[in-house]
């Protein structure tokens, strides 16, 4: 694990963190939505545009060669970052959602027939639920969901066996963007493989926050987004096992994904380009490569440990407030740095708006997980989510500031 300076020293790399919101210091606790970008990443993108900018792959001239080297070099960095066997297994998309659509669209074509079964969970982000609903509909298959145990905030292991039996594809999130729950992916993947099912993992909330190794997960595909891990917007990744990607049909058509076209048909390019149609997000891929380097240097183990400390602190401070209800596992070790909560007598929207006046950024809503939110018995929740650049005193300030919400609505703190 990387040693280096304490994580708090890295705050200086993020210019936006010294911003003031109406005179108040910004306390950014909306990292599950998107994270900020260090100057190292911004600098790399700027440098690309100022020195190397060109279209990739088909150019003989110097800029095009340099741009291609930088773009393909980013692919290698990202492959190493998640322990992929080869850069061929890294497909660049525009976000995790496109990656999951690609997986659902193309893998289900290969693997799912009429009357067959796809399995997901009740705690999915819409991006890993609706594409599978659509795929199931298209192929006359059915979608079954692993249930969330509302007491623990974990998937109900008791039903795994029955639900996974006979599945063709199991697609689940590694870490929930609402409950924070870290799912036992390796275990589920092992069960699924025994059934001959492919396993797709939504890593949008895990890859940025902990060491993720596709080999140890034992899955077939993994999707994640650059903007949630210090990278730019406009870039996502789908990792897939090479021999599986080889067999999957392409998803979007045109540009680089083609080997040969005639007026009547086409042959596809080799991996990974077979899945990359049109001019790719070149600068964004290069930026994500720089983000991986940055995170590696910070140390994914250290990041996870730091976020776990912040989560523990938040859970403990919120549990002292009797009118606050926290959703998801109560044990910081079982969850990512995501704390969703509600307050008696205050709508989540108003909580977020009132905290904003203190400079605190939290998110309120269904967090693109409406079915789960409804199962929690509410229409919306407020959510504080952490990254390595957050500090204990920010968490304390956030917990303390809930008093402002009570003040507005005349509530009294019902202490624990």
């Amino acid at each position, binding site marked *: 694990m990387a040693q280096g300076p304490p994580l708090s020293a890295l705050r200086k790399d993020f210019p936006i963190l010294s911003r003031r919101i109406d005179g108040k210091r910004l306390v950014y606790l909306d990292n599950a939505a998107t994270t900020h970008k260090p100057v190292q990443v911004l600098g790399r993108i700027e440098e690309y545009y100022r020195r190397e900018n060109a279209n990739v792959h088909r150019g003989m001239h110097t800029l095009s060669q340099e741009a291609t080297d930088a773009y393909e070099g980013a692919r290698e960095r990202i492959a190493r970052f998640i322990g992929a066997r080869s850069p061929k297994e890294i497909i660049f998309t525009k976000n995790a959602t496109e990656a999951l659509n690609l997986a659902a669209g193309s893998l289900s074509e290969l693997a799912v027939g009429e009357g067959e079964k796809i399995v997901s969970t009740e705690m999915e982000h819409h991006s890993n639920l609706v594409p599978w609903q659509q795929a199931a509909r298209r192929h006359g298959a059915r979608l079954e969901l692993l249930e969330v145990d509302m007491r623990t905030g974990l998937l109900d292991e008791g039903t795994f066996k029955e639900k996974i039996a006979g599945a063709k594809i199991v697609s689940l999130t590694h870490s929930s963007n609402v409950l924070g729950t870290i799912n036992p992916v390796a275990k589920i993947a092992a069960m699924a493989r025994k059934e001959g099912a492919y396993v797709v993992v939504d890593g949008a909330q895990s890859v940025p926050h902990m060491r993720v190794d596709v080999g140890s997960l034992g899955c077939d595909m993994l999707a994640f987004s650059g903007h949630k891990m210090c990278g730019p917007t406009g870039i996502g990744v789908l990792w897939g096992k090479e021999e599986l990607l080889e067999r999957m049909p392409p998803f979007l058509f045109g540009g680089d994904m083609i080997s040969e076209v005639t007026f009547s048909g086409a042959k596809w390019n080799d991996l990974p380009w077979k899945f990359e149609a049109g001019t790719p997000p070149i600068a964004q891929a290069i930026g994500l490569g720089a983000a991986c380097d940055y995170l590696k240097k910070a140390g994914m183990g250290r990041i996870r440990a730091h976020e776990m400390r912040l989560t523990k602190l938040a859970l403990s401070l919120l549990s002292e407030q009797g009118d606050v209800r926290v959703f998801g596992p109560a044990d910081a070790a079982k969850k990512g740095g995501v704390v969703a909560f509600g307050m008696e007598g205050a709508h989540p*929207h108003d909580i977020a708006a009132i905290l904003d006046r203190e400079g605190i950024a939290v998110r*309120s*809503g269904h967090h693109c997980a409406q079915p789960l939110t409804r199962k929690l018995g509410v229409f919306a929740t407020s959510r504080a989510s952490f990254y390595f650049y957050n500090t204990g005193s920010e968490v304390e300030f956030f917990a303390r500031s809930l008093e402002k919400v009570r003040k507005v*609505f005349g509530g009294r703190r019902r202490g624990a």
Partner: protein
Amino acid sequence: MGNIYTEAIVDYYQHPRKKGTIAEPTAQASGHNPSCGDSVSIQVRVSKGRISQARFMGSGCAISTAASSMLMEKVEGMRLSEARNLSKKDALALLGIGISHARLNCALLPLRTLKEALGQEGGEKMIKGPGKPKERRS
């Protein structure tokens, strides 16, 4: 922006007037805010070109609840033609606060829903039965 949590807004949020249902409504509709999950249903009873009764139900934030409640108060007793001509500005004026972009949907959901209940937005269609949500089903 200024303080949006005025005494009036908080009072209407915590003690909403005109909340409830009507036994035999002549028009109704429900609206929904995809970005936040807020929803409201509005029922009205119209007779002789006037709204004799107006009620809302729903779950929403302080802004949307107060907006619903104030709007129902406002339109009860109003001529149908007048109610149909209510503008966004009118609805915002009721609240008496500055509304940021992000809260516009909260503040305008009740008006949008009322207009749907009273026929096509701004149009002169006859009052019809239960409004269908506008979104298309996949």
